[in-house]
């Protein structure tokens, strides 16, 4: 084991390599590694944010769905009520109309009956007069009995 000037040479090599590492190897690598670390952290944070947002969106959509369901149920109930109302109304109207028609028809019938009676009365009186005329032509004067016939006509 002999120590000699090789030692100085080695120290110079050593210093040179330390300098290379210090200037050209470590700083760019350190920067790249730190940058990558930052990127990864950012990515993870973004993923976390996305997850959170997705949860929020799911909640929002569930809310919207529930609201829509409630609204539609409300609409259906309203519509049913309205239909009921319309049916009731129609029923009422129809009854009134029908009553009116029935009343009209009854009145007409009465009128018709009255007119028929009138005609009948006149015809009966005529027939009676005609009959009586034929009978009385032989026995009595028509003019004499006109008052009596008139009284009879009133009674019919």
């Amino acid at each position, binding site marked *: 084991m002999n*120590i*000699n000037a*090789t030692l100085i040479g080695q120290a110079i090599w*050593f210093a040179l390599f330390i300098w*290379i590492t*210090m200037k050209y190897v*470590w700083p760019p690598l350190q920067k*790249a590694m730190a940058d990558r670390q930052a990127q990864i952290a950012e990515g993870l944070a973004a993923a976390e944010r996305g997850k959170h947002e997705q949860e929020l969106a799911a909640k929002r959509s569930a809310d919207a769905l529930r609201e829509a369901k409630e609204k539609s149920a409300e609409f259906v109930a309203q519509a049913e009520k309205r239909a009921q109302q319309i049916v009731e109304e129609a029923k009422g109207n129809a009854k009134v109309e029908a009553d009116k028609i029935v009343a009209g028809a009854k009145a007409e019938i009465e009128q018709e009956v009255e007119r028929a009676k009138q005609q009948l009365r006149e015809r009966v009186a005529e027939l009676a007069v005609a009959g009586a005329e034929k009978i009385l032509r032989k026995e009595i004067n028509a003019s004499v009995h006109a008052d009596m016939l008139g009284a009879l006509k009133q009674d019919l």
Partner: protein
Amino acid sequence: MSAEGGLTTTGYIQHHLTNLAVCSDAAKDAAGHCHGFWTFHLDTLLVSGVLGLVVFGLMAMLASKATAGIPSGGQNFVEMVVGLVDQQVRDTFHGKSALVTPLAITIFVWVFVMNAMDLIPVDFLPFIAQKVTGNEHLPFKFVPTTDPNLTFGMSISVFLISLFMGLKVKGLGHFMHEVFTVPFGAKLAPVNFLFRVVEEVARPISLSLRLFGNMYAGEMVFILIALLGLYQLPLALPWELFHILIITLQAFVFMMLTIVYMSMAAESH
């Protein structure tokens, strides 16, 4: 390769444990071996330098193309290694420093690739080096961390950086105060100073000798296995597999202790 062609077992082992040294003619002895301080181990300098240039050049290239988006395979791998080191630094070092993490990355990666040279069969690279240079007896020790000069070069650098960091973070006054008063108080200032010196000196020595010892011993076992002729085949594989653990562990330990020393230097006792 077993001992053949006139090469003895001792010679083979010694040859594998000899560095390719260069020095001025004045420092050579009669047999042409280099002595004295001004000797350079060409193999250690060359292999560690080329490995470092390749691996840090590659990392710098990948880092320059790094994006925050989906990383490419290479970028992903570099990020994994760098992220592992950075995590250790974060767990251990609580001060603020632009130097500690790059320092730890450099140590871990560089020591790992140098240790990994141990996994190449012991005669491959020396054989190539001998063919290239045409010198049949050229020694070529291609695992740089088995050279104490490298481990001491690193650990002394780490020691100086931690000293500098302590001074910078605490200021000269606070630093000197700590040196002379911890752990026994101001009345025993010389003892405190002595303790501190022993502590500070022991750190780089233990740091470098740990790495050197482990790798040297591992290399030695590889050399001994390589001496067994055909029997090396069933033995080399398990030792290689086991060695993968050792090279990673030693690189990690060197890095971890460096971080600890830095954090001790930056924090008050």
